[in-house]
């Protein structure tokens, strides 16, 4: 198999040299972190006053973890380490309780992110001759813009269509002979199921590769999609706190995703104790940014569960490989590629006086896609006897939920006392989806 590299030197750097690169960058990262309000006090407590206090990579263990809650508390500028003048973009993502989190980027940060995405694309054997149709949502969600800039950097012909509108996606794939798509696995399956209905057949397309991410899926689903479309599908991993896509990506051998370790220090820890785990042991992924000036993050707990593969990949890249994401340490739901916390739904419902305190979230498959239904009980004092008014109420809740969780839920109004009462929060979610 022909192996291609974007930056062969760094991608195949030997592990000792890589560790030296990491140590040097970590020192600089500590210095930038000390310029933020948040890390200034936190690092001081840990006895770190300068990057020079870090003598070896093992000193990282003395730094406390950073969590999503920390990011929320730092909203908006508690983690900003440069002047706003030097920031050229920011991405916010929904927090767990309605308070968002923000990641700022300087030009340097975006260039580095773009480089990681370019490396990822080249690692799959794609290149400037490819026609790239980006079906991930653009905007604050990092999936769209992240791959977009990397694909342009590589020199691919980019079609920035974004998510949804299946018929138009197919038309573009046909008209421009798209060779590579960036997509969620459930949307890929949805497209397949709609081919006939929209009057297309696979012979209309010239598809060769799919980059699939934003939601967990099994090896079986990958094989199924590869077989259905007669393509190669590559697993992609990223999270907005670590820029977005391009954190870890599969190469042509498709055995785990190479995590770009010159840009991130990767740790796998036991979720409860926070103790480091060895290779092939499943635990929580923890990342430290090494190439981000505006929002450096130290030992960020991703809440994603995975393990690191043992041994060197046949592609000769020395950056270690992450397994598929096997689960979460919290109750986050992934609905058609969008992250949703039950607490976000609760927060919206509690704001609406017409509905009671009891609610339930149902998740099921409708074809290949996820359907999210929110059931609420109406509050008897608010009932005026009008159907129109109930429809208005339904629309109001829907609009507010959409604003908070980005996706459009199906709303159901119920009589008080008709929904089961649960003690624990997690039980409010009934997930009837079969794993793909």
């Amino acid at each position, binding site marked *: 198999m022909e192996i291609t590299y974007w930056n062969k030197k760094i991608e195949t750097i030997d592990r000792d040299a890589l560790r030296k690169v990491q140590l040097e960058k970590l020192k600089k990262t500590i210095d930038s972190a000390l310029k933020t309000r948040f890390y200034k006090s936190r690092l001081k407590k840990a006895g770190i006053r300068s990057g020079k206090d870090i003598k070896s990579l093992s000193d990282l263990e003395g730094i406390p973890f950073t969590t999503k809650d920390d990011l929320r508390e730092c909203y908006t500028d508690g983690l900003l380490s440069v002047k706003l003048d030097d920031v050229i973009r920011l991405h916010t993502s929904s927090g767990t309780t309605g308070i968002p989190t923000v990641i700022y980027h300087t030009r340097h940060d975006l260039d580095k992110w773009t480089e990681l995405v370019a490396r990822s694309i080249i690692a799959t054997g794609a290149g400037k001759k490819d026609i790239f149709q980006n079906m991930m949502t653009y905007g604050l969600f990092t999936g769209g813009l992240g791959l977009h800039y990397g694909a342009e950097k590589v020199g691919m012909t980019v079609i920035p269509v974004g998510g949804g509108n299946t018929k138009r996606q197919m038309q573009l794939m046909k008209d421009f002979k798209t060779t590579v798509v960036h997509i969620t696995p459930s949307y890929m399956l949805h497209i397949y199921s709609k081919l006939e209905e929209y009057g297309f057949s696979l012979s209309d397309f010239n598809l060769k590769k799919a980059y699939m991410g934003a939601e967990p899926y099994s090896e079986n689903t990958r094989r199924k999609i590869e077989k259905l479309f007669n393509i190669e599908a590559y697993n992609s991993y990223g999270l907005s706190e670590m820029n977005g896509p391009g954190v870890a990506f599969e190469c042509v051998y498709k055995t785990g995703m190479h995590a770009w370790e010159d840009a991130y220090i990767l740790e796998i820890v036991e979720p409860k104790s926070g103790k480091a785990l060895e290779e092939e042991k499943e635990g929580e992924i923890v990342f430290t940014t090494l190439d981000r000036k505006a929002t450096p993050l130290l030992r960020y707990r991703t809440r994603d569960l995975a393990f690191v593969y043992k041994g060197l990949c046949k592609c000769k890249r020395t950056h270690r490989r992450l397994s598929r994401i096997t689960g979460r340490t919290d109750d986050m739901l992934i609905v058609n590629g969008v992250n949703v916390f039950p607490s976000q739904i609760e927060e919206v419902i509690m704001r609406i006086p017409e509905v009671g305190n009891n609610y339930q979230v149902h998740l099921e498959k409708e074809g290949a896609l996820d359907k999210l239904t929110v059931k609420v009980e109406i509050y*008897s004092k608010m009932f005026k006897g009008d159907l129109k008014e109930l429809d208005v109420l339904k629309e109001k809740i829907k609009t507010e939920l959409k604003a908070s969780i980005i996706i459009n839920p199906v709303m159901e109004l119920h009589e008080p006392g008709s929904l089961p009462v649960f003690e624990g929060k997690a039980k409010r979610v009934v997930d009837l989806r079969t794993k793909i």
Partner: protein
Amino acid sequence: MKLTQISVFLENRKGRLCDVGSLLGNHGINIRALTIAESPEFGILRMVVDKPKDAVDILKRKGFIAKLTDIVAVEVDDRPGGLAQVLQVLYDNSINVEYMYGFVEKFSDRALLVFRFDSPDKAIAVLKKNKINIVGTKALEKI
């Protein structure tokens, strides 16, 4: 001259309508007229009954969401054009009907129409002026 109607919020669940019927029946409440407004997963049952306040209390005690609303009941001749005659008067006077339903009286040649207006007092004045018979609570009890 306004009458009281009961609106009940009902989930589209098997037996829910039956529950309301038997509950009112067991308490000796007589339903004079009813209609159901429906959406895919819930409906609103609207009823004119002989003892509306009692009925609402009973329903609420059993956990139903029930609400009293003012409506106007009008008597018309039970013949072709009977309804149109009333509606014409309302239209000519720009009275907006939010919803309506009707039923035929027993042992008589009159039909009863139940109206929900956005401005009931104005509607009553217009109907009276046009000599359309409005049914009051006492008359209703006799039906």
